């Protein structure tokens, strides 16, 4: 075959424009949508978030009749309907970790860094694209889970509507908390590079360490869980705030601060390490 290339020549080469952050965003979007694991992980997020939320709502609604006065006082139908999202978070965490760490395991990272040698730009584009996708999927999941949960509770126990104080914030907030986890998982994947190590770290932060903390004596447990980033961030999806918990927005702020710190470390290491 002839190897003559169309558009060869210094005149053509002089005409190109510098690559921008928007270019990197488009590139990362193609990367995300063109692998099968993205579809499956997002489908699992929706199914778990909505399905588990429905099951928990139905069970709680049937238990309401037999419950005592104090537990009726803390009845939070919004938070109950959004409970499934806590587990669905795992699917987002795995996908976020894989979004970058699979580039390390396949060697694609070198191809990516040759295309986008400004490493901060590459990481930011990845984080922004994955955060936006998670935000959309997260809001769809939380609104669906909310309405389905209230429908299942209705008739058995008091329900919440979006107009009630704090409810709209909680439903939107469940998607926001998921988005923060999305950024955290991309940063963790960048930091640790190995998919298994990064997924384990995410499981530890999300589930194992809070579980261990809740087994501690009260004087230890309360402050630890109050400020544990994922626990604090989760307050944004609650309408009734339990004792020893941060308020919704300050809690979410603690989580965002934690995510920002991990992201900052990931960025620094990505920039300095040999790829």
């Amino acid at each position: 075959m002839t190897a003559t290339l169309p558009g060869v020549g210094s005149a053509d080469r002089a005409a190109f424009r510098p690559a921008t952050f928007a270019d990197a965003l488009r590139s990362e979007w193609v990367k995300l949508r063109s692998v099968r694991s993205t579809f499956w992980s997002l489908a699992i997020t929706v199914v778990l978030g909505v399905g588990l939320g429905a099951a928990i709502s139905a069970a709680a609604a049937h238990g309401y009749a037999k419950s005592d006065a104090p537990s009726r006082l803390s009845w939070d139908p919004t938070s109950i309907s959004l409970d499934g999202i806590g587990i669905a978070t795992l699917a987002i965490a795995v996908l976020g970790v894989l979004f970058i760490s699979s580039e390390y395991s396949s060697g694609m990272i070198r191809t990516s860094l040759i295309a986008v040698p400004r490493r901060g730009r590459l990481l930011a584009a990845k984080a922004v694209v994955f955060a936006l996708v998670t935000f959309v999927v997260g809001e769809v999941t939380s609104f669906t889970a909310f309405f389905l949960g209230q429908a299942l509770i209705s008739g058995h126990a008091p329900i919440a509507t979006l107009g009630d104080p704090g409810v709209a914030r909680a439903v939107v907030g469940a998607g926001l908390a998921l988005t923060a986890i999305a950024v955290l998982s991309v940063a963790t994947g960048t930091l640790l590079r190995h998919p298994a190590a990064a997924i384990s770290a995410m499981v530890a932060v999300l589930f194992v360490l809070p579980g261990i903390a809740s087994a501690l004596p009260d004087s230890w447990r309360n402050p630890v869980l109050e400020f544990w980033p994922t626990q604090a961030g989760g307050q944004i999806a609650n309408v009734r705030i339990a004792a020893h918990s941060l308020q919704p927005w300050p809690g979410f702020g603690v989580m965002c601060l934690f995510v920002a710190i991990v992201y900052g470390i990931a960025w620094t290491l990505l920039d300095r390490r040999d790829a």
Partner: protein
Amino acid sequence: MIEARGLVKRYGATTAVDDLSFSIRPGHVTGFLGPNGAGKTTTMRMILGLDAPTEGSVTVDGRSYRDLPAPMREVGALLDAKAVHGGRPARDHLLCLALSNGIPRSRVDEVLRLVGLEDVARRRAKGFSLGMSQRLGIASALLGDPAVLIFDEPVNGLDPDGIHWVRTLMRTLATEGRTVLVSSHLMSEMALTADHLLVIGQGRLIADTSVDDFVRSSSRQSVHVRSPQAAELAGRCREAGAAVDGPGTDPDVIEITGMDSAEVGKLAAAHGIVLFELVPVRASLEEAFMELTKDSVEYQAAGVTR
């Protein structure tokens, strides 16, 4: 134009690249030669900003790679053909790379046609043979229509047709005035593809020369002689100061170094020695290379005991 000045890369106690300086000029295919572990890939990774040099610097058209405003438009590179996400279709792989540098989508189909992968564009890369992966890697290097091209072992895994195609492509790219740097450990391949050579061993520059000069300057130039009086000729040549190998198992054959064929012929005539064969033997590129790298290994070993 790729320029390296005093490039050094150390990994702990190991020095992978040791004070390398070179310029790679446009319009030529420059072969980057060295045995395995000589530092070829490490050098290429430093050119591409993947690894930071411990000392020294390397620039592409006067700028370090990380500072290029649209790197794929200026440099096309194929380092490792298998460095792709296996779950991503070939076309999407090229598309995400193209978009990252603002290269139009139409160019993706163009390079797929150019490398002959248009029929498998929708297949996921993990199903690709090494040869197909090499073509995909070459396609990604050509995406930005760059003036500088860097290929690490591009014919690895290709069938004879593919090798011929790559060879033609490299030469065409150089003829178009581009800078082409190709690494290989296949000396015979370089003889056919490259017109300039950069030879490294143990991370050090051994030779920066044209292919012709490289072979000509190699120390192994000898004269092959077949004669019924081989033993007598051997003695005469030794008297004249040449080194003679043989006669060995074949009592009629000797190899003379240190004299050219004309001198051997005259010497034989002066002593009435009959010659059946008188053949100047020029070291092949392969032999010249082995000779050079052998020296570098010996040098290195001496350096260690010091």
